């Protein structure tokens, strides 16, 4: 049977609950946006139920600390077939009563773990690479272009770090934005045409200068630098903007 869910994480967790409930051995799960081309399967529409979702997550947490979070991270990739990998890993985890992510010798778990790693490491990169521009008193904005939909994973970090500010982080890839104020934070969708942020203030200039001089000239290693700061992220990193301008190096 093909289980169709509403595209939310609680939806997918509800689907898992029902599959275990029906003891369905040949189940597949897909979000409603992807499932048109599978019309020859028998379909079942899952109604998202928070309590069921919560029970699955609580069960997963018992198998290992952080297992639901890691499932969530992998799921955020929204890649095709991710739900089935999750289901396979969850089945194995419950079968052996172990943290499913330790069963890496299984192809599907290995693939799922790899996806979670990719999404997780990009989320971590966004904690590193967000660059705010000051637009007014306690008012800041930043643009990012991540490959994955990682905003839900970074909002809390920035909200806790700047509890007094109002700020916005725009994800120009997925056209969503974090809006944060002293009262809380949320994610909203945004228009595709966004005005660029001004990057020419005095602190932007000083940061660029500092970035330039802090490197030890005799140990220049652009290859290594690129390994840590891939080119695809540089278009929104203040210190890499205007790199083509002639720069004078002091000793």
């Amino acid at each position: 049977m093909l289980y169709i869910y509403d595209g939310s994480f609680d939806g997918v967790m509800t689907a898992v609950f029902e599959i275990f409930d029906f003891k369905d051995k040949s189940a597949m799960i897909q979000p409603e946006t992807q499932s048109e081309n599978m019309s020859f399967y028998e379909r079942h529409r899952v109604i998202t139920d928070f309590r069921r979702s919560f029970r699955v997550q609580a069960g997963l947490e018992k198998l290992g600390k952080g297992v639901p979070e890691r499932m969530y991270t992998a799921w955020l990739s929204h890649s095709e077939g991710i739900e089935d990998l999750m289901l396979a890993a969850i089945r194995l985890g419950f079968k052996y009563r172990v943290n499913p992510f330790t069963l890496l010798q299984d192809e599907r778990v290995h693939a799922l773990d790899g996806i979670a790693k990719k999404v997780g490491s990009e989320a971590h990169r966004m904690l590193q690479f967000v660059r705010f521009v000051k637009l007014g008193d306690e008012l800041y904005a930043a643009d990012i272009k991540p490959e994955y939909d990682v905003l839900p994973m970074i909002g809390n970090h920035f909200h806790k770090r700047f509890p007094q500010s109002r700020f916005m982080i725009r994800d120009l890839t997925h056209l969503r934005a974090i809006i944060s104020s002293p009262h809380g934070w949320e994610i909203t969708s945004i228009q595709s045409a966004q005005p660029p942020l001004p990057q020419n203030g005095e602190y932007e200039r000083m940061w660029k200068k500092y970035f330039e001089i802090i490197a030890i000239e005799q140990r220049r290693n652009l290859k290594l630098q690129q390994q840590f700061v891939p080119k695809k992220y540089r278009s929104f990193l203040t210190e890499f903007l205007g790199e083509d301008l002639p720069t004078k190096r002091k000793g």
Partner: protein
Amino acid sequence: MLTVEQKLIILGNAAKYDASCSSSGSGRAGKDGFGNGHMAGICHTWAADGRCISLLKVLMSNACIYDCAYCINRCSNSETPRATFRPEELAQLTAEFYKRNYIEGLFLSSGVVKTPDYTMELMIKTLQILRYEYRFYGYIHVKVIPGADPRLVDVIGMLADRLSVNIELPSNNSLKLLAPQKERAGIIAPMEHIKLAKKQNLEDRKKYRSSPLFAPAGQTTQMIVGATPDTDLSILRLSKGMYRKFDMKRVYFSAYMPVGKHPALPSAEKPTPLLREHRLYQADWLMRFYRFDAEEIVDEKSPNLDIELDPKCSWALRHLEMFPVEVNTADYELLLRVPGVGVKSAQRILAARKTRRLEAEDLRKLGVVMKRAQYFLTAKGRFVGKVKTDSPYLRQSLLERRPMGQLSLFDGSALPDMYAKGYEGLHISDSTAAVMNMLPAISAIKTEI
């Protein structure tokens, strides 16, 4: 009068040879201001030399009255322009950078301007503005100036997350020769003081929960490697002692960069290879996380690390009688000794073999680096190495194939994480876990739908 920007250039340049940039291990936070310590540490960018930038690393002043031969800021160096930040200037710069998410905080060190006490007072003033006026809760690491009044150390310890005192050089003789105004005793005293003050603070906090934390991220130290003839054995012994005696969180090594001419210093044509620094970090890593002892890694007979091979491989080559080990039965300690098996993969092996016996093919998926491990283990009795463990070609096979030299060092996966990321011992998957801790309760993320 210099502008803040000019001072930043001079004092950033003066601080850039400092090795440590770690910003982890503090959980400071407050709602009335901004900033917090991130337990795992965050690097915000990487400079053109491939080093991570996590903190604004500057000197308070480089107008130093001392004359350490290995230092660019020594008073006899007439080529260096001098500058001193006003506390207000540096506090504001730090806050503005932090609010733009450029940095995790401040790493403040200084030359000795006028006297050690005067210098410390300038630093304290800067931190007080940051903590009390701006209500800044981000990370601050301060280098204590040897010779300063212990009471000033107490004050700054309440404001900073981490303190460090540089041991500078691996031996007392070297210190006498190259840094005549500094004394081992003057360096050891504040280390001892910090250790005791931290202990006292822990006890105070048991009684009065509200008393402020003293250097919650502990203390570290740093030494320059390659400016003097000291061997790796004496360096590793010293660093072992530092960990034991003063509860050091880290001992940093910094390959000497030729910045001065002194009859006792190596010439500018022969800088210390970065590779030596790298090997020392690997050895340090083995001591801290792999339960190796300094004397197992190097000994009187061969007191220096093998530059061509990482210290774990060279240890294994000297103890071939222990290999190959069977991954399905070996205990944790023994697994950790296998080249190519890390802490993480050893734990994964233990977890995975609960469900079934492992094949050689499973190991790669568990994170084992088979390039090295293949020669040292069997799975279900099967050996998959290209050459036998007792083969005379084993060393040859283990050598990294790329040409040796300064530049080849950093172009690959051989790089230990801590070096590149600047924070302590985290692998990508751990940082994922760290990100996860920031997740709002999963069902609370309904805002997105």
